[in-house]
């Protein structure tokens, strides 16, 4: 089982499109896990039928039991997150669920047993069959929720279970990572066998990718790289090459900037199925470079 994650730091760098095309390239020997639980998109192009969907419950939300509460206000100052407020007029105490982190500190100080908790439903995960006869796992965190790291762990765990049931041991788990470098990204890439860094060849994209490299170093992940949208700035392109050399990150391919990519997407096609043979062949050679690198 080879776990390979595509990450870029910056959003819109081509992560999902490239992961999808790689998945299509590897085919039935692989499954896809979309770990961008904030805004999972891969299913839009890939899903054919949902096989399983289950709620994701994590942590607690606390609430005031009105019948016991005497509005003494002891809980207000103990809450480190400013979630508890007293209404100026009615004096009623309430907990704002958006701010409550579910720590329970308020419960400890309430003399009247007026604070109760409920398990926190914070999203759903989905297992689906795909248009290319594979399986995909993805999830959706409820807007405003804060447990993305845990949900990412869960979809990865589900993915591994399915993989073990369906696929011969030398197959691939392909992970489409969330943007950023925080908790969800780290949950998505930690422990993978390979990280493929997608560097958008723009100043922002390069800046963001360098931060992912820092995180990958801390997590000790073998890293490969693809440069996307190259050719927009020559000086930047060469700066990126220098960086990759300095950090010893193998470059498996370069994708030139081309307005056509969005048109392919708008036809709801995979990049690798593009009618433009240049685009198609370039991707195929990049992907075979990745496979050669991994399987050599």
């Amino acid at each position, binding site marked *: 089982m080879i776990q390979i994650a595509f990450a870029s*730091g*910056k*959003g*819109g*760098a081509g992560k*999902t499109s490239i992961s999808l095309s790689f998945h299509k390239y590897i085919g039935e020997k692989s499954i896809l896990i979309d770990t961008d*639980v*904030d*805004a999972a*998109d891969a299913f*839009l*192009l890939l899903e054919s039928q949902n096989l399983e969907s289950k709620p994701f419950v994590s*942590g*607690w939300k606390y609430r005031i039991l009105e019948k016991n509460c005497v509005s003494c206000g002891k809980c207000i100052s*103990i809450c*480190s*997150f400013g979630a508890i407020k007293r209404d100026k007029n009615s004096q009623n105490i309430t907990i704002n669920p*958006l701010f409550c*982190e579910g*720590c*329970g*500190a308020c419960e*400890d*100080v309430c003399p009247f047993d007026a604070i109760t908790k409920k398990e926190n439903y914070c999203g759903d995960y989905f297992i689906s069959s795909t248009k290319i006869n594979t399986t995909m796992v993805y999830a959706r*965190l409820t*807007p*405003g*929720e*804060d447990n*993305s*790291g845990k949900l990412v762990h869960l979809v990865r765990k589900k993915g591994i279970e399915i993989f073990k049931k369906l696929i011969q041991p030398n197959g691939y788990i392909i992970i489409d990572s*969330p*943007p*950023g*470098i*925080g*908790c969800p*990204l*780290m949950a998505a890439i930690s422990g993978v066998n390979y990280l493929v860094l997608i560097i*958008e*060849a*723009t*100043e*922002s994209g390069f*800046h*963001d990718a360098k*931060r992912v490299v*820092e*995180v990958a170093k*801390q997590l000790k992940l073998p890293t490969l790289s693809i440069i996307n*949208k190259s050719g*927009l*700035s020559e000086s*930047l392109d060469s700066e990126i090459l220098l960086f990759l050399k300095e950090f010893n990150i193998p470059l498996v391919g370069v994708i030139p*900037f081309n*307005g056509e990519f*969005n*048109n392919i*997407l*708008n036809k709801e096609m995979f990049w690798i199925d593009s009618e433009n043979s240049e685009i198609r062949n370039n991707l195929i050679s990049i992907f075979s470079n990745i496979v050669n690198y991994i399987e050599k």
Partner: protein
Amino acid sequence: MTNSKKIKVAFSSGKGGTGKTSVATHFAQYLSLNEKTALIDLDVEEPNSAIFFKNRVSIKTEIVTRDTPTINSEKCSFCKLCVQKCNFNAIAMYKESFKFFYELCKSCNRCKNICPNDAIYQLKEDIGEIREYQSGDLFIKDGLLKEGSVQTKLLIQAVKKLSNSYTWEIFDSPPGTTCPMVESISDVDFVVLVAEPTPFGFHDLKLAIEVVEKTVKNWGIVINKSGSYDNIIESYVSKNGYKVIEKFPFSENFAKKYAQGEFFYSQFDDKMERIKNYILEVL
């Protein structure tokens, strides 16, 4: 609305890479020509707004820390009450040794408050830094999450606290629809959703709308990299009674300038003026 009143506007999008930062930076730059304006980049995992202001001067950099608990073993009776009470399983204790898992700890202080021996005290942990710049008349502030830290939300809260007041406070939100994004739009007056007309962009726009509808009263949509997929977004928008305030075209030339971290929407001052007027009108 008079100029003395503060107006907070957040630029957000469900999907990353829609051009949120481009539109936000240009809008702030445009406003700063005539009014006291601050641009606050809340995408602390990947702050990119300041890059576009080549003539920026750094005014201040400040390390941000948070309190994390630890135990004074001299005072601790190893009763394990803190272990039982921590809802995040951030403390482990075995016989007379203990370990804190700080990546799980939320700094809620419950352990410290509950300890019968007063054995828990706070350490400081670096979570990143806050940076302030001046570019012409524009004040810019952003945060840089330390690589390896998971304290995105705390750092966003720190970046949001401004010491001066501005007529316009323009926020560049982090991507997504979960906690960091909601944190960035809570208590703003207006949210501009920047949408990219592709199937992915459309789907993420719908998620973002779901969030803004719950969180703020006033909001509108700007379509960026306008193209063949616009009509799908526009018919959805008009069917639901939403509003597309403005559209920005797609051009390879813009992409080039963007790549070099240069301004490219200066020719769109009229569009910026219309966005501004729309916001003022609604408020």
